[in-house]
């Protein structure tokens, strides 16, 4: 077995760790006794067989209870983390979707504004050109009149 405090290998049934002197309350394997971050649901499931030994001795009962408690904490923590990370992912995704929609809407509005502006510029060109052509026609007519008068 391993020391619950420093993790060094110690003799089975040791009450104290010969290395760090920590009291060995539960002779659980290292993987069960040391918290390893927020456990994933799969990691929590892996601890189930070890938490239910059918051949435990009366001396091992406190260790069994401690193991069970650790398992519950791990399960609750795991499920909590899973739920929290899921919520966080959802929020991030939702914000990204909203941003995408906003950018897309802005692009559509901008494209519409540009199209409208182009139409106004085209209209202005048409108006000025029509006036210019009318001016040119009048000028030709005036010139013809002058030529006729001179003749």
């Amino acid at each position, binding site marked *: 077995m391993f020391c619950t405090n420093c993790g060094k290998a110690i003799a089975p049934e040791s009450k104290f760790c010969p290395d760090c002197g920590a009291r060995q309350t539960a002779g659980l394997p290292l993987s069960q006794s040391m918290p390893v971050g927020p456990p994933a649901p799969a990691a929590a499931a892996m601890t189930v067989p070890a938490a239910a030994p059918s051949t435990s001795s009366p001396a091992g009962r406190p260790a069994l209870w401690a193991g069970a408690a650790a398992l519950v904490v791990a399960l609750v923590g795991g499920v909590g983390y899973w739920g929290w990370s899921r919520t966080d992912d959802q929020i991030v995704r939702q914000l990204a979707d909203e941003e995408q929609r906003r950018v897309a809407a802005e692009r559509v509005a901008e494209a519409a504004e*540009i199209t409208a502006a182009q139409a106004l510029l085209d209209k*202005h060109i048409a108006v000025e050109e029509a006036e210019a052509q009318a001016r040119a026609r009048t000028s030709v007519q005036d010139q013809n009149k002058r030529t006729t008068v001179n003749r």
Partner: protein
Amino acid sequence: MVPHGNRNSFDIRQKNADGSQIVVSQQQLPDGTKRVTGFKQTDDTRDGTTTRVYADGRLVTQGRDFERRSVGSGTSFVTHRNGLRAAVLPDGRPVFQDRFTSFRDQDGRERRMIERTRYARWWNGRPEYEPRPVVRRYDVVYIHGAPVAQYRPSRFVPDDYRGHYARFAVPVVVAAATWVAFASPVTSYNDPLALMGDMQISSAFEEGYAYSTPYGASPVYDAPEAATLRSQMTTVRQHVKTSVQGNAALKDQLAGVDVQAASSRVQEAVGSAVPIQIPEEVRQQVRKQVRLSVAMHQNGRPLVLADVLASGYARIYLFQTAQPLNVAQASAGVECFLNTGDLIGFSKLPAGEGAFAEMKVVASGSSSCLPGEVVLVRLTDLQEMLNGFSERVEENMQRVSACAASGKC
């Protein structure tokens, strides 16, 4: 040291013993590269002028009632506070000169006008003197209290316009301009207005390019003041870099002083013959504006900034820089340069009583503000750009008529 908001953008200011000041600005560009610019500022208390020599050879002098800009020892452009402008060659000969004049209108009222006499125009990168000076007249208008000339086109005889609306009888062959690169190059034109549109872009960049290249025997980039400044800038940056390395607090404020950036980048930029890329949509927009300008010219109607702003198409309208300008970036306040030909559009339409507009650079030469940068431009300079656009259209109408006659341009 004056930080600009992020660890890669800051000014380094150093006072010299003679009272002048060297300012080195390092700026991080959106693509992550660093740009280093710098100038030496000298204040003359006797005549109240402030002169800045920039590392790329530009020279800007601010006086009490004028601003003079030039690229190295090239052509100088002067804008007076009363609205008059002038341009002078390095040998002292005028390119153009404004003066106030007055005339009586049909109602007998006396009107003040600005008369601009143009002595030279640019052809193949060189000033060519007109056989007879060209005189143009401008209305004097006020934009937020600042006087500015507004070009009123003098109409040609009707026949001179007719050729611009009909396709060329024989396609006009055009030699490729080395200073611009269109997305889809054309070597011959059937449509006069398409030719005029492309010529509008290339002839203006040609002029701007001429201002950035050595004129006669006078070098531009290696003007002695600019060369000395670049050497001083390197020393200043080296000094700061050493100080930063030995000072944890300073190191935390500044990500890195780029000692190499200025000299190499400036050298690359100035006098570089890299063609200016013109996106197709920009080309098409300029063609439309030229078409409008030809028709307005025929109707004797001026291009007026207030009309553009009220038109509903201001947000797509492109302004072509008429004369070299020193402008500040809207965000960082760092200065950059707009040269003749550079195209800009509104980033935000001006509102209220502000004398400046936020303009986005659309296409620009290698020593100018970068495309995409937002810069502050005086509204009076925007009107001057409209004047320049209209005058260029007028000149190009004559050029295109000559091209049509010979079949090539």
